[in-house]
């Protein structure tokens, strides 16, 4: 990009050096986002972080963080992580395939419809979603009944909507659409021209995919899966609506301590739990960042 094209220096001698100008542009570009995040997210979270380092009498203490490694929180953390990982993977693959098929083969009309449906479904949750699934797959659900007619008794064979796997099934209702929304732009970017170019050069379909397609799509796929992981990990309303505490999860625990009717003196522990969730996600981002850096060269 020609350096003198900046409107700042048009027609006059530059007031600042190129480096300063670059910094200034960076500031202007990032400022809206940073101010916005600062006030409406970082400040509230900051308040939470500060309190997490206080014990329940208000004095500075690390007791909350040591409590996290004890039961029952440890089990809740493990369960939450497993649920998030399983949910992310079981939704990323069907979601990714669906996104690919729709983006590459669907008409524009179809893509618009899918986008709006996915937008709505990705935001379903809580009591309405729980009810929909109970109505469909509960003990007296419509799907349960239909399967019974076909001779399959899912509850008889031990399935329960209110178990770990039941939660995975319910979560997939908003996870898969989310995958479609977030991954579609990446598929969209996989030009048909590249496929054609590869074919012209003699590559088979399989070779195209293993040498060009997958490597190009993989970082976006991974980042989308990470998004799904984070979303399942922190899902609050749906978990609260579906479980009664026998499936220990960190978000519901936080809710019980902050917004409950039984325990009122462990608010700072709840805040420490929230902080620990952020730390966990940070750790989960590391593999993604490594892969991202390696495949940056593919992206332009």
């Amino acid at each position: 990009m020609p350096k003198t094209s900046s409107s700042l220096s048009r027609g006059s001698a530059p007031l600042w050096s190129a480096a300063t100008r670059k910094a200034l542009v960076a500031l202007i570009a990032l400022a809206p986002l940073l101010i916005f995040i600062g006030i409406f997210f970082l400040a509230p979270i900051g308040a939470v972080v500060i309190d997490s380092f206080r014990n329940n009498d208000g004095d500075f203490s690390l007791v909350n963080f040591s409590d996290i490694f004890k039961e029952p929180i440890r089990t809740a953390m493990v369960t939450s992580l497993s649920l998030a990982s399983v949910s992310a993977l079981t939704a990323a693959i069907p979601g990714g395939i669906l996104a690919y098929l729709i983006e590459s083969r669907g008409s524009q009309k179809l893509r618009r419809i899918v986008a709006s449906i996915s937008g709505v479904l990705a935001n379903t949750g809580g009591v309405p979603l729980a009810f929909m699934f109970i109505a469909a797959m509960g003990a007296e659900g419509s799907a349960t009944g239909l399967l019974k007619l076909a001779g399959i008794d899912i509850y008889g064979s031990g399935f329960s909507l209110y178990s770990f796997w039941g939660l995975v099934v319910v979560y997939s209702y908003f996870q898969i659409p989310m995958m479609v929304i977030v991954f579609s732009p990446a598929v969209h970017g996989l030009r048909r021209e590249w496929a054609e170019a590869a074919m012209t050069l003699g590559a088979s379909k399989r070779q195209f995919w293993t040498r060009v397609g997958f490597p190009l799509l993989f970082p976006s796929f991974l980042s989308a899966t990470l998004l799904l992981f984070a979303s399942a990990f922190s899902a609050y309303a749906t978990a609260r609506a579906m479980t009664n505490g026998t499936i220990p999860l960190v978000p519901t625990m936080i809710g019980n301590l902050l917004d409950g009717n039984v325990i009122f003196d462990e608010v700072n522990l709840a805040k420490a739990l929230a902080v620990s969730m952020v730390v966990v996600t940070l750790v989960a981002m590391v593999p993604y960042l490594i892969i991202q850096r390696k495949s940056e060269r593919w992206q332009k």
Partner: protein
Amino acid sequence: MNFKRVIAVAAASAFALSVAVTASAPSQAAVNFCKVTDLKSAGGMDALVAAAKKEGKLNVITLPRDWANYGEAMDLFSKAFGIKITDDNPDGSSAYEIQTIKTAPAAKQPDVVDIGVSALNGVIGAGQAKLFANYKVANFAAIPSKWKSETGNWYGDYNGIIGISYDASVAPAPTKIADLANPAYKGMVALTGDPTAGQEPFMAVYAASVANGGSVTNIKPGLDFFKKMKDSGNFIATKATPENYIAGAYKIALTWNFNAPGMIAGAKAAGKNLKFVIPSDAVLAGTPYIQAINAKAPHCAAARLWEEFLYSENKGKTSTQLTKADLKVSGSKLFNLIRGGQNIFVSGGATPILQADMVAKKTLISGPTGFNVPSGAKVYQPTPDQQVDGKTVVSSVWPTL
């Protein structure tokens, strides 16, 4: 010199005028209802009603309509006194109530709260008794001393008993908590929530404990019972809510008796037949919920009138029985005309805090049958201290049930 005299005359007449004005002013200074501590200092019921009507609004918080028939209480109060009631987050928790008082801006402050005892201990224990204002209702002396503060900044209002709600199609109809382990009830039994988050399921665990050889000091048998039911498939992890009931997710639940009448009516409207029974092997009463007036209440007179209303033992008229002619009557007469909160709680299936007094004075109406303590039954009631111990045990055992 002339000028000085003019000033002197002006000053003198101004002084005289102000004395005259002050002398002719009403001898009683305007009452600051936010500092009123009982009916007497309010200037009597008529004055309180007038002031409340003038305020015209009341902010309540986390009061579900079918909880101990609060819906009727709100409707009656509103209709009788023309006061508009706003209910902040009806499904909210006691923690939400306290948090709101502590952090919400002035316009969002509730006037009165109805919280669980554990919430109160958390607040009072931390030296924050100043959150509530002192006000002793007319019947304050009749409230058991265990359930009120000496200064009058909190007082118990009603309590309930844990019972079994069940769908009419369930056979055999359950009568005991211990029965629920019967294989005939596979996949049917649920709690209304997480015992570490809700008073109702927490008390249900106590009830299960008493029914299975435990007591209010030993909650473990209750937890063992639920584990047994979970393993056998009787106890399912769904939440016992009205919607889930309609969808057939569960058929039997352990609930407060004062929630049952509303649930039964709601179920009937939705086409299902729900029944309720007090278990014969454990009559578990919860600790009373606690009323308090917010020290930062925006509508002080209305708040105090509401409390007088909730503690009134009058039999009186309900909201549907109240006529236009009734509304024209003056303050205290109108107050005595309408049904008091204590009896409204009774009609909702709850046990009012003033029950002993009402029985003695014969002001108790008969509530719905089958919702109260069977005569002669031993009632178990875990004290707040016992609940603290129970809480610790449940928090560590329940997640790994």
